[in-house]
């Protein structure tokens, strides 16, 4: 398959502009400046700079790969990498010029000229396509007028407001510092440095295509391990702190960042390991596959036992701060597994899952609190209330499910979203204030007590969450293969056909909602006990969206997928504080990208993958 010259040009320009737009966007929403706060390798590179360099690298690699596959000469592919580097720097450079005092006139002029240029370009294109003269003139006038309104308004805004950053808050000095590599004073030098770095990264990216496979993979492993360890330096240090001497630690880290020689050592080490894996990994995998069924099972068993053992000792390995994160992840695993029954198995898109979480939390709060709002101070312990919270959440799930049983798809989603909002508003209202405290919430919730020890540390609470997760996981795996589970899957695929097969859809759906609510209640109760107080602000639509995202990203109906999804989506933002501001921005982007490119999720189940393929095939056959 050979590409024509115009296609080659188009590939390079599209990818380059995409990469440039990405860099400008991340800068304009403040991501680059925020990530700059985190050093990956001490005094060498920060996370923000890494984003600036990795983006052209990846796009350069993609372009060269695509062009190389299409049979273009290496020189074209490498040239493509360089052009992509340049195009990556272009939008940000323009913004830098607009932002500076000396080149501000460029902004004014481009705002003045843009309507005419754009209108002429569109009209010219129409003229080339043999449109009627009157239509061409009409379109020119229309486009010029509409764009003119926008640019006039923009010019007015910037005229009155002065600097760009009084409107676009993140086009500020910090951002300029990062993208010019600390050359704010000599802007042109800064732009030169930035462009050169970007071109170099693009070129290296395209060069990577021509490195043989084994060393390329080795380099990839080495680089990613080093950068990940560097980026999560704080976390890694916390883990090592539990197990290493202080002096050794200080040789590796300077405060929370990797020292340069430590990074170099890690890079060399992981590259060597990566090389060995890339060279001999296939053989090992082959060997494993050649083993008999009995041996594979034994290996699996040993793996599972080791994994469970690791989970059991985890709090001692990772220390207090990380245990706290682990508890949060566990709560979301719990909710994810629960919501998965509704969304994943039965295909009921429930956006009001926070309802169950809130019910569980408030039940525990009101029943055990020793504050003024506690109903039976000291009578009930945490352990007695957990089943009550579970039942209450199931009851709430049941009550809210009955009205929506007849609804399908998007109507169901919006109705449940409405329920979530209703619960939120009720929790904060004056009406229920005597009962659950309104905006002040419920305070003074005692910690759970187990065998006369108060479980007040995250390390101890971790075990409660772990047990709850394991039980839920077990139930969930069993449900997957049960008769009910199959009924749910039938409903997910086609409700009408399921009814025709004799499935009582109302009953099955009700069961799905009720069961899925149960874990939400438990998660809410544990959350309330962990925090020690309950506020209505904790129960927003964001909880529901969090849970939904982790299910979608991990893989719908896939239990391991949900665990991975929770670790990635909940754990990462907790560990990388710079991330957490952009959490929902990234979730949103992730949801869109997953739906377009990989709707089955990261760790899909076989059935779902198969169904999605079959659906696509059926659509193709129907010519839709």
């Amino acid at each position, binding site marked *: 398959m050979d590409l024509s010259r115009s296609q080659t040009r188009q590939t390079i320009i599209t990818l380059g502009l995409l990469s440039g737009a990405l860099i400008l966007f991340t800068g304009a*929403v403040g991501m680059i400046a925020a990530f700059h706060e985190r050093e990956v390798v001490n005094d060498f590179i920060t996370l923000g700079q890494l984003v600036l360099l990795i983006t052209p690298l990846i796009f350069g690699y993609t372009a060269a790969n695509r062009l190389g596959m299409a049979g273009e000469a290496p020189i074209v592919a490498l040239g493509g990498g360089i052009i992509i580097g340049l195009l990556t720097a272009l939008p940000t450079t323009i913004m830098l010029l607009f932002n500076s005092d000396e080149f501000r006139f460029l902004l004014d002029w481009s705002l003045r000229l843009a309507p005419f240029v754009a209108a002429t370009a569109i009209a010219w294109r129409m003229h080339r396509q043999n449109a009627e003269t009157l239509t061409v003139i009409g379109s020119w006038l229309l486009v010029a007028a*509409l764009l003119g309104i926008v640019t006039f308004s923009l010019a007015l805004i910037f*005229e009155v*407001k002065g600097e760009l950053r009084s409107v676009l808050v993140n086009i500020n000095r910090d951002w300029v510092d990062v993208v010019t590599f600390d050359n704010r004073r000599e802007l042109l030098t800064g732009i030169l440095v930035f462009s050169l770095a970007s071109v170099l990264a693009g070129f290296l990216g395209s060069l990577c295509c021509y490195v043989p496979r084994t060393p390329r993979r080795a380099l990839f492993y080495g680089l990613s391990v080093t950068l990940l360890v560097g980026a999560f330096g704080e976390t890694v240090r916390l883990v090592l702190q539990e197990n290493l001497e202080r002096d050794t630690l200080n040789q590796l880290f300077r405060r929370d960042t990797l020292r340069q020689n430590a990074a170099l050592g890690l890079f060399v080490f992981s590259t060597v390991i990566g090389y060995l894996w890339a060279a001999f990994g296939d053989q090992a995998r082959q060997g494993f596959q050649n083993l008999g069924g009995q041996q594979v099972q034994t290996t699996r068993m040993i793996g599972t036992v080791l994994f469970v053992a690791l989970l059991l000792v985890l709090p001692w390995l990772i220390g207090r701060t990380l245990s706290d994160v682990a508890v949060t992840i566990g709560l979301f695993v719990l909710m994810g597994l629960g919501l998965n029954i509704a969304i994943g198995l039965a295909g009921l898109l429930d956006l009001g899952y926070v309802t169950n979480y809130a019910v569980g939390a408030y039940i525990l709060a009101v029943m055990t609190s020793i504050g003024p709002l506690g109903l039976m101070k000291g009578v009930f312990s945490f352990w007695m209330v957990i089943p009550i919270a579970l039942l209450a959440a199931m009851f709430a799930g049941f009550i809210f499910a009955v009205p*929506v049983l007849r609804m399908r*798809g998007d109507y169901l*989603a919006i*109705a449940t979203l409405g329920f979530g909002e209703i619960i939120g508003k009720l929790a904060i209202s004056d009406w229920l204030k005597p009962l659950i405290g309104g905006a002040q919430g419920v305070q003074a919730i005692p910690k759970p007590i187990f065998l006369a020890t108060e479980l007040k540390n995250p390390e101890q609470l971790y075990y409660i969450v772990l047990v709850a997760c394991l039980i839920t996981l077990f139930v969930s795996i069993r449900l997957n293969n049960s008769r009910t589970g199959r009924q749910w899957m039938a409903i997910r695929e086609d409700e009408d056909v399921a009814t025709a097969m004799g499935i009582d859809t109302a009953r099955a759906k009700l069961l799905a909602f009720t069961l899925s609510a149960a874990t939400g209640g438990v998660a809410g109760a544990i959350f309330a006990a962990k925090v020690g107080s309950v506020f209505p602000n904790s129960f927003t639509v964001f909880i529901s969206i969090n849970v939904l995202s982790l299910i979608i990203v991990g893989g719908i109906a896939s239990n391991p997928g949900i665990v991975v999804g929770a670790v990635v989506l909940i754990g990462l933002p907790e560990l990388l504080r710079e991330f957490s501001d952009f959490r929902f921005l990234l979730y949103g982007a992730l949801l869109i990208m997953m739906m377009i490119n990989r709707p089955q999720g990261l760790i899909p189940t076989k059935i779902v993958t198969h169904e999605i393929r079959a*659906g696509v095939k059926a659509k193709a056959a129907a010519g839709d």
Partner: protein
Amino acid sequence: MFKWKTDEFSWVDFTIDVLRILIVLAIVVGSWNTLSEGRISFAQWVNLFIAGLSQGSIYALIALGYTLVYGILLMINFAHGEVFMAGAFSTVFLAEALNRTGFLNQSPVLAILLMILFAGLVSMTVAILLERIAYRPLRGSPRLVPLITAIGASFFLQYTFRGLYGSGFKAYPQVKILQGALQIGSINIPTVQIFVFASALVLMFGLYWLVERSRIGKAMRAVSENKEVARLMGIDIDWVILFTFGVGGFLAGSAGVINGMFRPQGVNFFMGFIPGIKAFTAAVLGGIGNIPGAMLGGLFLGVIEAIGPNLVLAGLGIPGANQLKDVIAFTMLVLVLIFRPQGILGERLSEKKA
């Protein structure tokens, strides 16, 4: 209305009927109590009604975007509330600039027109990009897929604008000519409410003309009727869909400016979420896919939201009833979805679409 099945007893129907009776009882008892106490005078009721109408006309403008898209693609553009936010949030800077130069109070008509156009164009751009980038690749996939994409897009847009403009609230400046009030007997109608209602009417009339009278409107109706046949008639489907998103976006953006003039508490990145759900309620209320229905549904929802808490909830002895305004709206949504998913004016809604 009550459909008792003779052959078998369906407990779902039974529960829903019980729910229906309970709601009717609550409304009757609440209204009876309020009206018999007479705490709120007739003039106050009229004021509430008119305030509800103007709030409702904003919902109607947003609801039109949902309905237009649903009519053509049978999909709920969940991110439409964020399209509304995009226009409103971007234009607040223009409003400030116009205010600082004094233009806003010198020739308010021109200034507000500029703001509406600017907001409309910004929202239009956002809506078009959304369609082009997020929704077009998914056309024809299972129904949950575009919905989840739309949820993702909604949060992506919210936090993009938070990143661009900051997370604080920004208020639209006050316009002098909208400050006064119109006195009719004992009824006092703020000018701003008249302005909101009138400009919404103008926009809706414009849309009606566009859809019913213009060439592209004819194409839109044809595409919503049957895509394949429309394609055979030589209509560029992609362009029509893009145009529909654009028109919906324009209306939402202008609604953003009108809303900004009307509600002084200001705009921020999260402002589109709740109005988005409410406008969706309005669209369903009027019959989704039905343009006059969306207008009617919006006005209806606005009025219910204004009167409901004072009439029903206060009558039931619930303190702070006005805090529960949103609860009324969302309950309304659920009730409509349960009892009349085809909406007030929805006639052509088949089982497949519901």
